[in-house]
Each structure stands twice: as C-alpha cells, then as structure tokens.
C-alpha cells in the first residue's frame, strides 16, 4: 500500500494502479473516456487530467493524465486544482464541438457517459460556432445501430472489439478530425460479442438496435437482476420492462462470472419473452372450448391426478424451484430427466466428477486468470461464448504477465503492454472436432473425432505421472500430447475445459484425469464442464432416472399421466421415441412458455412464466446456484412460474385448502430436504423478506415517469402497486435509495453516474469485485487432499468406416439454442441446415461445396447442401444442432450419406 495526497488529504491506496483508478476507488469523481477498467489506459482522450506536484512545497505542479500515471508513495496531486478543472472542462468543450447535441432523440440519453462527464466538468456554454463535421452511418446487422455523428473518438470501441474480443471487422479509419469507427463497408458485425459495443461506447454511436424497436429510457424501465437463460454459463444480466414488454438486457457486472461483457445471444435473445407464440391461457384440449380458467383447470386436474399415476419429466431450462416442485408433486421415484439418455449419462458423469471434490471448478474469473488452458472437446465459442471470451483474456493476460516480468511497466499501460507482447500468447490448446475462432489464439489446435480427442486427453494424463495407461496415438498427436502435458505442468494456474457438447463421455473422464493429475500443492488446477442448457447442471444434480425409463413406464403401465415441465422433448429425444411416449401416456400435462412440438401433444397446457415474469434459481456449469428475479407481473394472470402452478396442483392433489404461500427459498428448502446434494441452495440469495432499514429495493429508479398516467386508460385513480411477496423488491420506485447488496442490484446508478459506468461506484476497488459481492451458492465443495480416483478406461481409437459417417453436432452461437431463436436478429444470423465433412471425404463422395447430400436419421430423410471444412476429421460429418424446425439428430451414431446427383 502507498500513501498519496489528494488535494492535501492523505489516502492509503493500492500499488500497481494508476491515479485515475485510485481516485475512482476512493470515490473521487474524475471524468474519463478512453480508459475502461477492462481495457486499461492509453491516454488518448486527455479527459482525466489532474495536477501532480513534485513535493509538498511545489505549488505550480504540472498537468498529467491520471490514467497514465502510476501511484507513487508520497505523491501529491490535485483533482480540484483550478487549471486541472479548467482543462477537463476544455476537453469536453472540444469533444462537443462536433457532437450533435441530439440527446432528446438519442438512445443513449439518460444513460450516457458523455452526458455524465459533461455535467461533471461543468462545461455548459458553446463557443464553437462553425459547422459540425458529419459522417455516413453504416448498417451493422440486426443488433447494433450506428450513428457516427455522435462519436467523440475515445477509441474504446475498436480497443474492445479488436484488442479485447479479437474481432476483425470493426476498425478505425481516416485521420485527424475525420476519424471513423466502423467497418470497411456496411455489413453484419462478425463478432458474437458485438452487443457490448453498446455499453463500451460512452455515447450513442453504437446502440442496442433491438431496444430501438420498442425504445424506453433507462429511467423508465422496471428492472430486476437476472441470470441469462441461453447457455450454462449463467451470466448475470439486468432485464428491463415497460408496458408489459421486455425491452432490453444489459450486463450485470459480477467479478466471478461474466465481468463486464455478455455475448450477443445472451443480450439479444430476450425477445422470445415478447413472442406472439407465447402460451397465454390454460387449455384443456378435450373440450370444445379449450381455454379454461383456473378453477375449471384445477377441477379437471383434481380428477385427473386422483385417477392416474403421475410421472414428471424435468427440464434443463426450468428453474431448480420448478423442477423441485414437480418432483415433490409426483414423487422422487416418478421424476425423470427430460433429456436423452446418452446426454443424461454424460451429465451424470460430470456431476459425479464434480461432486467428488477432487478438483476445483473453474469460474470465468479463474479462466481469465489461467496461465495455461486446455479445451478438450467442447466447442466453447458456440456453446459457452462468454467462456471463450474469458479464455481469450487468459491467453492475453498470461502473455502480458510474461513480458512484464522484471519490468517497471505497469499492467494497466495497455498500448505499451501490447507493444511488448506483440504476437506472444499464453498457452491454449484447443482440441475440438473442427476449427473454431479460438484456433487463432491457440498454441496447439488439434481436430480429431471425439474418441480420439479423449485418447489424446488420456495420453496427456498418462504423461502427468498418473496410473493412466499409455495410449497409442498417431505420431503427430503424440507430439501434441507431449507439448500440452509439458505446458500444463509448467503452469501455476492451469484450467481444463470440457463439456457435454460432443456427446462423448470418455472426454469427461479424460479431462478429469488430467485435472486431477495436475492438482498438486504448488499448482491450483481448475476444471470446467460446459453443460447444454441454463439449468442442465441443476437437473443433472437431481440425479433422476433417464427419460427412456419414463417411456418404459408409460408403455408398460396404462394409467400414466405425465407432467412435462418447460421442455420441448422433440429437441431432446428422437421423434419416434417422443411419439411413443406421448401415445402411451393416458394424459399429458405440459407447462411451457412457448408453443412447440411438445405442447402440441398436451392434453392440458399451462402457461409458464419466463425468467422475466417469475423468480427462480439456475445452477450454472460450475454448480453455482444463482437467483433470477421477476422483472414485472404480466397482465395475463395465467402466466405464473411453473413452480407456483405445481405447488397449487400439490395442494389440489392433497386436498390441502389452507392456501399456504411458498416463497422461492421455501421451495429451495424443500429441494434440500428432498435432495441433500443441494445443501446450501436455500441460502443462495437473500431471503424474500430481506429489507434495509425496513425498506425493500425498488425495481424502478426514482426518475421513473408515467406511473400515475400509464394505467389511466383503465382507471383514473392510481391503482395499488403490485406487491412482490417473493423477493426483497418492490415493483415501484419506492424503497431503499442506497446501493443494494450485490445479488439485488436491479440497475446501476449513482448520483452523477447515469450510464453503465456507474458500476465503478458499486465496486470495492474499480474493476474488481462488487462490495460484499455475493455471486450465488457453490454446490460443489472442493475437498483438499482427497486422493483422486483416476479413470483408466480408454476408448478404442476412432476408425473411419466404409460408406458410413459418424454424425456429430456443430453448435452455433445463433441458432442452436431454443429460446433465443425466437429473437428476430438471432434467427436472422442462424445458419441454414447443412452437412459438413472433410474435403477428402467430399472427394470420395464426388461432391463439392453446395452439392446436395441425402442422409437418413430416425427414418427421416434430409437433403442438405455440403460444406467442406479442412479441419473436420475424415469419417465424421457435422450438422448444425438445435436449429428451429430441425428435429434432434442421432448424434454420435453412424449414418449413411448419399450423394444426390442432379
């Protein structure tokens, strides 16, 4: 720690930071633009000028940019100095010479860093009376709107997009005061992390195009802390609503999980909530008028439940609460996983490995801080995008740390560090079926069939002094194994990543063996398994029987009524099996949010709340249980959390009429009682009656407008505000005005800081953890000193077959996930179905790119165009997984491929 003097007041600050970071951490307001906690300093905008004095006797001092000046013990500086203040105000005046002052019609207005900084410096009068320069805007795709005239040239967009996220198609062009930030020509931004531009841009150049379609100012949004439902990473988000419509998703900073950034699927996939395809009313299909009210529904279900054996089909995208309530209703022995058994088997193995506690789980923060990373099998770029972004930071930071060894250069000095780093990278081995954008930053890229990837993994484990037997590999793969093993052994904080995406269980075991072998006293190894969906881990931990058992029950017993929870079974199991299941069940009660193939089969269909309309808990890939909070009460009273419906059914079934009210933590307590492996989950979020000074946390900022007017079409008198019995939040602007504790932050705001940059004010130290950060509950406990039990069962090598190909999934950020595909932009960027194979296989079949191939899966024939890809191993074909309208494929099985000669 160092002692510095700011305006003659003594402070103790952390070394290795710059003066801007020190001031902001101390709560001293200093305006800035080009600096960003995740991007470091470059000193371009000159906004954060302060005066630094040689010593306490120096009265003249000199202006310096605080972002470019290291903390030195005994340093004297002044923020309030007249010259420094005047210069900061002058910098704003310069920036404003060309800024259009279109705040009233600008999307950024009210959450604009430029507005905040302008007010902060006190600049208020325009002396520049010449014409402003203007630009042409570009079409950048469905997610980001471009308005270059507003640009203040802080360079943060390119530094984020290019340097941080590795995108190539956004750049800075031209010079002097015609500097232009955009693409070479109009076109869709290629990076799946482009949405962050809207938050990185300090003004309205890059804004959320989806929000534009139903625009609302930040201050007019009703918001709640949420958790992304579009993959298993569990990024923290803020969801905003107005007029009963979900309007936008923004990032909710959290140092453990997603930090400052989201992927575009997470940010823009929310529109399924507003979809016209929503289920809006309970239906009983056997009736002439299908739509029924709650009383009729309950009467119907009372009879149905009392005369049938209930079985429940759990969901990998429904909350722990909903799955628990279903299990409670049907009984543990009648609860099945709503996923296919192959996947279920793999996920079971993952849970077994993680629960063993032999190795620690890797949070995204751990990934970012890793000094060597092995990705074994999982295509994380497409299945867990923000994890791929974290991997990139790990690789870059390791290289930076390496060049900074024995140098006086501080790590925040971004441009200088990059200059020294040049092309150097930290160690990353990306071992996947085919190429991914991560290959560009990989030390080793290996592309093999899944069994061979697993063999590679075991070969690495073998080299790490484990009892794992030696594996015979091709010479070049053997060499790669040696390189990877050596790099992992040299690392101090290695991270191993695998997952269920290859449908290969041996990969899970191999990844564990490597991690367990590396786990020594001098090395902290972390392990991550990517799961397919937002609560796959939660469902897997429930350790329920597989779906095929449910099918067997349905076919063998003739009195089965199945309850299917928020799940399109046709996306998980082959259509013939799902058909058998539905045909065998006497009745089928389905809860879901959107109509799909499964809801078509329902005798009773009950509308479920989405993440925005209800509370619940999701368990991410690392076993972190995180609560998402209801954003708004939908006007449609039938839209309720599945767990609430299920608890009502429970009451109806047991004839319990004393209407007991359950809160999420009650259901989670139930969960812990039913399944001790969930111990601790009830404490994963504050209790529903948590209050500060007796006050609840308002979901609306104090500037929320229209409260008395917006419902005037219904009643002139202001209606009673909606009450929230399930969380510490109020649905209005009333309540605690301070900063809520970390899991309860519905929006980031601080006086003078209306933009997302107000996150600074919630952090312990700028860029670090939130104050008293609580990032959910960890369900997997690490048991230090446990002796790991290695897996030694190594799969046979993959052998190319004659006339047959192994069918494997190719995941896509856009298109492979069910719910986000309802968002217009996401569906626009989804690929058309295709079949991908190696060039030599294509040769063998006599086909070229674009030729049609015919394949038969589950008795269904598909004719698809060919895409050749040099990195796909021979004998393997890939098809995009999870596309809307494409049923589930027979992944990891052998299929015939026939060329269609036209």
């Amino acid at each position, binding site marked *: 720690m160092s002692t510095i003097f700011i305006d003659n007041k003594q402070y103790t600050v952390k070394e290795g930071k710059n003066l801007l970071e020190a001031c902001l951490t101390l709560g001293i307001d200093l305006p800035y633009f080009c600096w960003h906690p995740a991007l470091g300093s470059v000193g*371009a905008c000159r906004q954060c000028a302060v005066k630094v004095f040689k010593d306490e006797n120096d009265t003249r001092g000199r*202006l310096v940019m605080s972002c470019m000046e290291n903390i030195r013990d005994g340093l004297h500086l002044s923020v309030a100095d007249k010259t420094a203040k005047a210069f900061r105000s002058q910098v704003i005046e*310069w920036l404003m010479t060309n800024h259009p002052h279109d705040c009233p019609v600008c999307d950024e207005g009210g959450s604009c860093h430029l507005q905040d900084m302008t007010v902060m410096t006190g600049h208020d009068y325009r002396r520049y009376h*010449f014409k402003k320069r203007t630009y042409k805007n570009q079409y950048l795709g469905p997610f980001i709107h471009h308005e270059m005239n507003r640009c203040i040239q802080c360079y943060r967009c390119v530094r984020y997009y290019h340097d941080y996220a590795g995108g190539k198609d956004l750049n800075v062009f031209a010079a002097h*005061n015609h*500097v232009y930030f955009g693409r070479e020509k109009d076109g869709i931004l290629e990076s799946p992390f482009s949405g962050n531009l809207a938050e990185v841009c300090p003004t309205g150049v890059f804004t959320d195009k989806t929000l534009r379609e139903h625009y609302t100012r930040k201050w007019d949004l009703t918001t709640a802390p949420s958790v992304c439902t579009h993959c298993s990473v569990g990024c923290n988000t803020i969801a905003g609503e107005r007029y009963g419509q979900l309007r936008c998703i923004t990032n909710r900073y959290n140092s453990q999980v997603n930090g400052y950034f989201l992927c575009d699927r997470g940010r823009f996939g929310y529109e399924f909530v507003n979809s016209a395809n929503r289920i809006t009313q309970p239906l009983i299909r056997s009736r002439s008028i299908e739509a029924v009210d709650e009383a009729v529904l309950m009467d119907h279900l009372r009879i149905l439940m009392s005369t049938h054996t209930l079985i429940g089909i759990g969901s990998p995208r429904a909350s722990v609460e909903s799955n628990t309530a279903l299990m409670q209703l049907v009984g543990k022995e009648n609860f099945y996983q709503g996923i296919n058994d192959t996947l279920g088997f793999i996920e079971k193995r993952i849970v077994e490995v993680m629960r063993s506690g032999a190795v620690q789980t890797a949070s995204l923060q751990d990934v970012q801080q890793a000094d060597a990373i092995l990705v074994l099998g999982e295509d994380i770029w497409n299945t867990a995008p923000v994890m791929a972004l974290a991997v990139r930071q790990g690789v870059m930071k390791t290289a930076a740390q390496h060049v900074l060894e024995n140098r006086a250069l501080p790590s925040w000095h971004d441009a200088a560090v990059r*200059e020294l780093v040049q092309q150097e990278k930290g160690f990353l081995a990306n071992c996947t079926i085919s190429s991914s954008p991560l290959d560009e930053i990989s030390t080793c890229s290996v592309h093999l069939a899944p069994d061979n990837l697993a063999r590679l993994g075991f070969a690495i484990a073998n080299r790490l002094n484990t009892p794992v037997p030696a594996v015979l590999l091709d010479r070049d793969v053997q060499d790669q194994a040696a390189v990877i093993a050596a790099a992992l052994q040299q690392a101090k904080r290695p991270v191993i990543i695998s997952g269920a995406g290859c449908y290969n269980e041996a990969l899970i075991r191999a990844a564990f063996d490597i991690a367990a072998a590396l786990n020594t006293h001098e090395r902290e190894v972390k392990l991550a398994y990517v799961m397919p969906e937002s609560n796959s881990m939660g469902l897997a931990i429930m350790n329920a029987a597989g779906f095929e058992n449910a099918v067997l029950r349905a076919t063998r017993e003739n009195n089965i009524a199945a309850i299917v929870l928020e799940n399109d079974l046709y996306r998980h199991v082959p259509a013939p099996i799902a058909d058998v299941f539905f045909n065998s069940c006497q009745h089928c009660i389905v809860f879901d949010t959107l109509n799909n193939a499964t809801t078509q089969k329902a005798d009773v269909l009950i509308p479920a709340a989405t993440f925005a309309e209800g509370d619940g808990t999701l368990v991410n890939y690392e076993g972190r249980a995180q609560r998402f909070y209801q954003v708004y009460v939908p006007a449609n009273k039938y839209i309720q959390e599945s767990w609430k419906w299920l608890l009502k059914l429970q009451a109806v079934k047991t004839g319990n009429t004393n209407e007991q009210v359950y809160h999420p933590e009650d259901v989670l307590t139930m969960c812990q009682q039913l399944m001790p492996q969930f111990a601790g989950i009830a404490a994963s979020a504050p209790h529903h009656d948590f209050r500060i000074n007796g006050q609840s946390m308002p979901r609306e900022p104090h500037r929320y407008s229209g409260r008395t007017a917006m419902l005037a079409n219904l009643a002139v008198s202001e209606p009673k505000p909606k009450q929230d019995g399930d969380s510490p939040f109020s649905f209005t602007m009333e309540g605690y005005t301070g900063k809520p504790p970390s899991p309860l932050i519905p929006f980031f705001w601080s006086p003078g800081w209306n933009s997302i940059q107000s996150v600074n004010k919630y952090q312990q130290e700028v860029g670090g953890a939130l104050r008293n950060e609580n990032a959910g509950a960890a369900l997997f406990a690490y048991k230090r000193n446990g002796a790991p039990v290695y897996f030694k069962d190594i799969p046979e090598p993959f052998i190319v077959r004659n006339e047959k190909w192994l069918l494997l999934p190719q995941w896509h950020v856009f298109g492979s996930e069910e719910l986000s595909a309802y968002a217009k932009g996401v569906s626009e960027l989804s690929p058309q179905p295709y079949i991908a194979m190696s060039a030599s296989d294509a040769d063998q079949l006599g086909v070229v790119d674009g030729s049609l191939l015919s394949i038969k899966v589950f008795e269904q024939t598909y004719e698809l165009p060919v895409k050749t890809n040099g990195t796909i191993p021979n004998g393997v074909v890939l098809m995009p997984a999870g596309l809307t309208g494409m049923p589930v494929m027979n992944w990891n099985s052998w299929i015939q491929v026939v060329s269609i000669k036209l």
Partner: protein
Amino acid sequence: MEHPLTQYIHPGCPAFDLHEYEMTGGYSALQKVLTSMSYQEVQKLVQDSGLKGRGGAGFNTGMKWSFVPMGNDAPHPKYLIANADEMEPGTFKDRMLLEGNPHQLIEGMILAAYAIQADISYIFLRWAYKKAAQLLRKSIHEAYAAGYLGKNIRGSGFSLEMHLHTGVGRYMCGEETALLNALEGKRATPRSKPPFPQISGLYGKPTIVNNVETLCNLPHIVNNGAEWFRGLGSGDDGGTKLYGVSGKVNNPGCWELPIGSVTVRELVEEYAGGMKNGYQLKGILPGGASTDFLTTEHLDVKMDFASVQAAGSRLGTGTMVVMDDATCPVGFVHNLQHFFAQESCGWCTPCREGLPWVEKMLLSLEHGTGTNEDMELLQMHTQWLGPGNTFCALAPGAMEPLQSALKYFREDFERHITMHKCPYD
C-alpha cells in the same frame, strides 16, 4: 571552413556511387570501427563529440544511445532507424543529403547500428522523395554487394540488414513513436513514453530512431575524432549544421555551416542574398513551421540551440521560413494551422478537435468575420495545446507560430476584425 557533410554534394551533379564514395574516403570510418573499436568506444566517442539530434529536438545523440540495453542479456533483434520522413514545412535539408550522398547516410547508419549492436535497420523515407528512394535502393544494393551490409560485415562478425521503407505521406510519421507504429503497419499514432523506444521500440524491441543529418555526421566523427567535431562549432554545440532559408529572398537554399557560426541576419542577407526587391523581412520561423516567430529585433541571434531558445524560439531543423511584409501573418498562420490540423493523427482530443477549430477561426478572421472572442479563443488554444496537455508534440509545435504571431503581429489580427476583411487583400 569545413563542410564535412556536403563537401561532395554539388547541385546538378549526380550523387556518388559506391566506388566514388569509397574513393573519397567513404566507408573508411566503418572499416576503422569494425577493425579497431568496440561498440562502447563508438558510443563514448559520439557522446564526447556532443553531437545533438538534428531532427529538431536537439537531444544528445550519445546520451540517447546510452539507454539501449547492451550486453548478452539485451533483447534482440535491436533496430536502428533513420528518420527520413522530412515533412516539416520549409525544411529540405535531409533531402539534400539523401539525394546528394546516400552512402554517407548508409555508412552513418551502420556505425550507429554497430554502436547499439542493432541487427536490423530501416530508412523511413518520405513518400514524396522519389529520387532519394531510387538512389537509396541502388546504394543499399551496392553496400550489400560490397559486403558493408548483410551477415558478418567484412569479416567482423557484426551483421546488419537494411531496408528502405517509403511512407505514405503523413507528417505524423516524423514523430519517432508514430513512425514505429507506421513501420509495424499500424496507424501512425504516437506512443506514450515511457517506455522509450530505446527499451521498447519497433515490435517492442530496443530501437534507436535518428535523423538523417545526425547519422550523416557519424562517419566524420569516427574519422576525425570528437575534438575535431566539437571544434567545428562555435559556442556550446559541436559540428556543422545544414541551414536553410526559404521565402521571398533572392537566393533560397541550404548551406552547411559550423553550428552557431551565423546569425539570422547573416543567413538571410549573406547566404540567402537578402530580401527580394520591394519586400521587407517581417518575421522568421527559424527551424521549420513548428517554431516560434522571431522578428526584426532578433536578427542578430546566433543560430544555435541555446541562443535561439533564449530568443524565445527553437533552432528546430535549422531551416528557416522568412515571412515578408506583403504576406498577411493571419493567412500565413492559417496556412500552417491548416497543415497541422490535417496532419493531426486524430488520437488525442486537444489536437484532433482544437486544431481544426483554430484553423476555422483563422480562416474566419481572414474572411473578415472574425471577432474579439476568436482572439481570446486563439489565445486559449495556445495555452491548452501546450506540451504535456496533448499526447505528442504535434499540437504544441503547431501552437508555437500561432502564439508568437499573436504576440508580434497582434495588430494585424486586430485589423482583420476592425476592417472586416484582410488588410493585405
């Protein structure tokens, strides 16, 4: 009087080829260094000579080299770069050396590279110097063929590669760190110092960037010694300097003279042949467009680093621009600010936004629509665009002629406002 740098340069005559250069003693300094001097001795020799950088800043060359990490642990490759991106308005001295005696530069570069034990050298040449490019390409080729460049030069064990890089015409590339970025294929934006290029320069490796004229001095210092070099100059500075004069003088040109041996008056009157008929000298920019005006009261200032500085300006490149009494100072300064505003790289706010504003106000004054408030704003810019406030020296340099014009020619500015037109029209 000795003219070591230009003794073999004769306008109108073709430049020496390798053979001719060798015949006149060329590459003998290199031979001497390779056979009998350690790199430490070369560094010490140049430090002792007191050679100051001729690019404009006037920093001690030997001192600049001394920050380069040496010895076995030093990172490699190290780079030596000749800054031949001569784009300072009114400056054409390096061009004379490049077109007149390219081997002199190449030899100087090899010597400098030897002194810092560099492995690779570049000449960053202004795009418009087409003739120089042609000559340098040929000369580098000759030097390679003769074994002065490449692996194991003349059996000494010292190796050096040399490449010619022609720029695309940005003034910014004359700034050494922006030059490095440009050479790496990045945008020509300057870098923040520290780290200095000596530590982290081209591709993050130790790098020295020296001006053409600076480098051309090296063979002569090696051949004749530090004492000789110091003895050439008068006053504190050693060696000769290429002085130039442009403007409405009878004999504009460039002359190599002992540094500090001439006054402004002598340069204008004796060497440049005095003002053209009907013109009076009104002011001069002593060292290029980014130096402060001196006026008739400064005619007896000696043209060395310290004297010019004491008079309130900078020696800069030593090539002065003369402003006559028929030229409107406002228009003159506007022309300069137009150049600087256009050549701003767009990286830092004050330069990117401030210079175009200054340019517009000056144009407005020229058109007779300027106001007293503009005068205040111009003054304000000269203060806020000062050193330290901007990222590099471009805008502070641009402010030097403006602030001195406001000081010395204020009346001219004010007449534009009161007459609502340019009084010189």
